[in-house]
């Protein structure tokens, strides 16, 4: 980049389109997977990137919402080619509560792929730590790291992992979504719930510590979830000397770097912090660079 002030991952491969919903299925309590047909995006998007989604022709809600790539798929419309994008969302407020009622054939405005995606780093053991709805960026990453699927440009270099563990924390068992997708990818899934209704009764950081105790030296952590949980995971990672990338879920208004809503305090090499735009400088950051 000739311009050191400019983000490295602005929307340089993004498309904006009005797309049709192919399916919208319930995965868990208040959690749905929406699939829409958008061949250009499906062929470009890579794990850790996101897209913006808006309800067409409405001014309330007005602003698009950022949602992570869950996976790409074949809609069935185009000779079996990968032409659709899957997003998994938790019903939270204005937009997602309306989206939950969407049926096949209804239209959405989308733009993407956006953001940097996960850095490619080969490792013996990739440890994914997810809290709440933070598991969504990891299905595609696991598929890629374990050599099951490819995403984006087929000439893109992909870093493999010898094995992948998911430490996944939720409030209750009925909020866990997508576990079969991880198991199908070959991921070793460990679960923690706040109320003990499934898996370990306690915090996901305890699962992470156990996993780190058993893991070999060549390991890496990726993390996504509520901010306090990511901060705790970053602390465990630093304490154990393990490299850690986190995907921030900062609220966004444009997703493409033009509004300066989505800022997070990021340290530069000198240790000075500046507000960086999560949408174009992230959403994935090295955990050690974040000022929590």
């Amino acid at each position, binding site marked *: 980049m000739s311009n050191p*002030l400019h983000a490295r991952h*602005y*929307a*340089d491969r993004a498309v904006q389109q009005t797309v049709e919903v192919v399916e919208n299925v319930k995965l868990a309590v208040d959690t749905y997977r929406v699939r829409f047909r958008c061949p250009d995006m499906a062929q470009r998007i890579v794990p850790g990137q996101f897209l913006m989604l808006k309800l067409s022709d409405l*001014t309330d809600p007005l602003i698009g919402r950022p949602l992570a790539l869950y996976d790409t798929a074949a809609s069935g419309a185009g000779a079996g080619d990968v032409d659709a994008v899957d997003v998994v969302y938790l019903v939270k407020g204005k937009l997602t509560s309306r989206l939950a009622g969407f049926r096949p054939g209804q239209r959405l405005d989308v733009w993407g792929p956006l953001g940097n995606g996960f850095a490619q780093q080969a490792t013996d053991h990739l440890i994914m730590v997810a809290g709440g709805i933070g598991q969504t960026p990891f299905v595609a990453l696991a598929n890629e790291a374990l050599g099951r699927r490819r995403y984006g440009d087929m000439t893109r270099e992909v870093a493999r992992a010898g094995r992948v563990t998911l430490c996944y924390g939720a409030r209750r068992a009925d909020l866990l979504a997508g576990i079969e997708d991880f198991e199908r990818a070959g991921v070793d899934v460990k679960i923690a719930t706040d109320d003990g209704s499934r898996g370990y009764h306690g915090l996901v950081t305890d699962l992470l510590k156990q996993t780190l105790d058993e893991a070999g030296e060549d390991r890496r952590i990726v993390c996504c979830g509520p901010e306090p949980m990511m901060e705790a995971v970053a602390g465990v990672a630093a304490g154990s000397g393990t490299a850690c990338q986190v995907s921030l879920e900062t609220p966004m*208004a444009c997703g*493409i770097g*033009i*509004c300066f809503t989505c800022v997070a305090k990021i340290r530069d090499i000198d240790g000075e912090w500046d507000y960086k735009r999560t949408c174009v400088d992230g959403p994935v950051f090295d955990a050690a660079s974040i000022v929590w």
Partner: protein
Amino acid sequence: MPPSESSPADVDLSVQLGRLALPNPILVASGTFGYAREMEQLVDLDRLGGIIPKTITRLPRPGNAPWRTVEASSGLLNSIGLDNDGIDAFLEHHLPYLARLQSPLIVSIAGRSHDEFVAMAAKLAGFSGIDAVELNISCPNVSGGVDFGTDPELCGKLVAGVRGSCDLPILAKLTPNVTSIASIAEAAAAAGADALSLINTVLGMAVDWRQRRPLLGNVLGGLSGPAIKPIALRCVYQVSQAVDIPLVGIGGIATIDDVMEFLVAGASAVQIGTANYYDPAVSMKLLDQLPAAVASLEATRVASVVGSLQRADAPPAAPPASSAT
């Protein structure tokens, strides 16, 4: 003699803002288009009538603490706080890219004092590739800039000072958060502004009653988007009755009907703001639709539509020809 039916292909889109000539009236508003490069994949930047990058200040500003925006009904509240890297970084890192684009470049500046504004404008005058300056005397999110937009005397002095130190065309961007926007506009016009940009955001607030806390990091913020369009139209209309210089309409513009309403009400051009966030290609769609909309009024020039509003008691115009050829 003007043809009775005009063809969209023949419509002259160019408009004149004082000393500044624009190829068409669709501009993008400061703070809602980054530094333009972010948009190069989604927008054909060379087609725009003008680009106004995010406001710059003399020194870098980190901006306000999050939350920086909150959605409102058909609108957006923001308290970004002029997050920018300062004028020197802009000139070094963003200007070379922006200057290469065909679209006119209007650089938006905000100073904390009269002298700072004047010094920044003088500095810009020394660089090529800049077509005009827009004085942001209306940002609700920083203290110390807004007085120029609320006090006619300070506003007039500032415009005169900038005019004396910088030979670029000057746009003054006004705030609606005043009792009489016309009196501020008159002062800016009398002091030599080439055009006025109307409006910046409308001061507002959002509250989380359960937590009993304001939602915006800066407590107060500026409302933008479709919710403020009627206020912006009113400002353009009132100011057009008070001054003779061209106006640039801003506020909630997202559709071709919005654009035409502002032109008819008295704006020579418009700036698209919040709509860029939720429909990044909106400016291109509006440019595609503009010629036919102008032709449907049997006009051959955008400029002849500007300020063509009739009195409320005037007889209704004949419906537009159904098939303009």
